[in-house]
C-alpha cells in the first residue's frame, strides 16, 4: 500500500472525472433547458442566451438574470450575479491547497470549470486522497468539462424550444419547482432554513421597492438571520 506507484495517467483520471460527474448531469440538463426557455421569454436574443451559458456558466445567476433583465439597471444586475456567485469564493478557497502545485494554465482553466456540481464531485474525490499534492487535475477537468458540455447542449435545446413554445404557456410553475428542487435538499440546518424563510418573507414584504432592491435586501437579511440563528447550538 505504502509503495509509491505510478500515478494514473491524465487520460484515465479525466474519464474517471467524467464518470463521477455523470449522475449530476441528469439533474442539470432540465435546468439548462429551463434557462434557455426563460431567457427567450424575457426577450434575451438566442445568441446572447447561449453565449451567457459559455461566459457566465453559472445556472442560478443566469436564471436570476432572466428575471432581472427587463426591469433592472445593468450594474445592479451584474452586482446580483456577483453576489449569487460569491459562494464560489469558498469553493475556490477549499480547492486551492489541492491545486497549489499546478502550472498557472491549469489554474486558469480549472477556475473556469468551478461550478457547484463540479466542486461537489471534485472536493469529495480530492478529500479521499491523503496527499493534497497528488490530486489530479485530470479528474477536475473531466468532471468540469462533462458538466460544461451538458450545460451548453441543454441551453441550446432550451433556446430552440423557447423559440417554438406558444407564447401563452406559463413557466412560473416550472421555475418555482426547479428552485425548490435545488434549494430544499440543501436546507439541512437551522441557519440555512432561517436564511431561506427570512429572505422569502422580506422579499414579499419589500416587493414594492424599485429596481428589485427587495431581492438584495432579502438576501442580506436572510444571511444575517441565518448566521445569527445558526450560531446557537
Amino acid at each position: 500500500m505504502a509503495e509509491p506507484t505510478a500515478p494514473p495517467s491524465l487520460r484515465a483520471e479525466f474519464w474517471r472525472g467524467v464518470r463521477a460527474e455523470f449522475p449530476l448531469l441528469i439533474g442539470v440538463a432540465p435546468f439548462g433547458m429551463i434557462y434557455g426557455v426563460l431567457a427567450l421569454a424575457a426577450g434575451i436574443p438566442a445568441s446572447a442566451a447561449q453565449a451567457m451559458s459559455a461566459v457566465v456558466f453559472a445556472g442560478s445567476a443566469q436564471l436570476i438574470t432572466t428575471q432581472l433583465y427587463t426591469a433592472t439597471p445593468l450594474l445592479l444586475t451584474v452586482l446580483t450575479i456577483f453576489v449569487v456567485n460569491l459562494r464560489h469564493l469558498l469553493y475556490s478557497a477549499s480547492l486551492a491547497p489541492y491545486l497549489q502545485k499546478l502550472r498557472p494554465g491549469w489554474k486558469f482553466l480549472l477556475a473556469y470549470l468551478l461550478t457547484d456540481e463540479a466542486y461537489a464531485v471534485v472536493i469529495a474525490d480530492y478529500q479521499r486522497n491523503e496527499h493534497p499534492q497528488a490530486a489530479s487535475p485530470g479528474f477536475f477537468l473531466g468532471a468540469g468539462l462533462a458538466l460544461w458540455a451538458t450545460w451548453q447542449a441543454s441551453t441550446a435545446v432550451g433556446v430552440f424550444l423557447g423559440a417554438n413554445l406558444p407564447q401563452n404557456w406559463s413557466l412560473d410553475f416550472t421555475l418555482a419547482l426547479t428552485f425548490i428542487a435545488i434549494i430544499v435538499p440543501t436546507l439541512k440546518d437551522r441557519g440555512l432554513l432561517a436564511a431561506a424563510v427570512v429572505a422569502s418573507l422580506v422579499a414579499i414584504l419589500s416587493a414594492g421597492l424599485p429596481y428589485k432592491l427587495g431581492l438584495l435586501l432579502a438576501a442580506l437579511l436572510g444571511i444575517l438571520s441565518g448566521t445569527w440563528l445558526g450560531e446557537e447550538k
Partner: protein
Amino acid sequence: MKIWLILLLGGLATYLTRLSMILLFTHWQIPPWLGRALRLVPAAVFPPSSPKRFSSKMAGSTFLSITNAS
C-alpha cells in the same frame, strides 16, 4: 446591447471569484464567520426570487405566483 454587457461583466465577476482563492491562496484561510455567511447565500437568494417578472410578458399566466405584487 445591455445583455452583452451584463454577460461580459457578470462573466468576468464570476470567473474572478472562482479564480481568486485558487490563485491567491498561500497561508490565508477564509475566516470561519465569513465561511458561515457565504454558505447561506443560495438559501437566501433562490426562494425569494422564484416566480416573477417574466409572467407579465405572458398574458393570463399570473396564477401560482406569490410575488405578483411586485
